[in-house]
């Protein structure tokens, strides 16, 4: 088992953990973090799996770079939205009590 494959498997585990958090956590920021965890896992899988085969491979690296930027953009956007949401409603989650309030 090459280290690359190990990276990939670690990515898999990260995905699992992230998914668990994403599904279960209600606090918006935590959920966002879980999302980032999944993202990291995916990127690890992407690179690890490809490099396990080809050795250092610039294409997945570039892809991951792009993916990271996208993820950052999304994360930043989400944080802005969450902040404003919190500012307006005082809620940190989208649960039902929030719905009742509005």
């Amino acid at each position: 088992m090459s280290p690359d494959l190990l990276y990939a498997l670690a990515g898999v585990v990260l995905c699992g953990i992230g998914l668990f958090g994403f599904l279960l956590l209600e606090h918006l920021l935590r959920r966002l973090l879980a999302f980032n965890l999944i993202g990291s896992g995916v990127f690890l899988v992407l690179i690890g799996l490809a490099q396990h085969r080809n050795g250092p491979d610039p294409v997945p690296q570039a892809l991951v770079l792009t993916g990271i930027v996208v993820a950052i953009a999304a994360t930043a956007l989400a944080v802005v939205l969450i902040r404003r949401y919190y500012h307006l409603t005082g809620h940190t989650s989208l649960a039902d009590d929030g719905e009742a309030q509005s």
Partner: protein
Amino acid sequence: MRRRLLLFLTLAACAGFTVALAAAVLHAAGAALPSALPEQLAASLGSSGVEHPVTAVLLNFRNYDTLLEIGVLVIAGMVGISLASTSSLEDPALRSSDSLLYALQRWFVPLMLLLALYLLWAGADRPGGAFQAGAVLAATGVLMRLGGLPMEFVRPGVLLRLGLVLGFAVFLLVAVAGALAGEAFLAYPPGMAGGLILTIEIVLTLSIGMILLALFVAAPVSDEHEPEEGAGP
């Protein structure tokens, strides 16, 4: 009780997912086909205008991805500032007057700018590039913001917006210039690839830094409301 059940079920599902995924990864790793892509890439690297393969992929072979990616970033920045409608994005309440911080900043800010410049330049042949540089740039801004330096330029005026969109716009102009020159969309005219990529990288750095910074400082201080749809003209 229900909550526990839910917890357990989710845990089981996620574990199952992880195992299945791991199996798939192992299987894929075992069954991987040899790919011709690395050789193709190596063969084409010479005509890409940059030496570093990752940058070549990013800004030449798959530059459409990058263009759109910058678009995504612009969107995020835009939405960020759209939610803040005060004249300045800077909140005076956060301005600090700690002299130690101030002194530190006087050292750090120029250093970080220098680092950003280096990263940008390094992108041509080693890890680095516009995004890394931009990120450092943005970090500089964040530092300045946290340190309480006045930052009048992140007003949501036309200047900020111009800054946000500058990198994207230049990239796009280059892209369409290639098309107008009779090449494909996004294709660089022969021989000009290196220079164009550098230009793009520079403006991208600026824009990326600006966007990230704008996102950071976009404060939800507006209490103005969009009336509910149908609530009256």
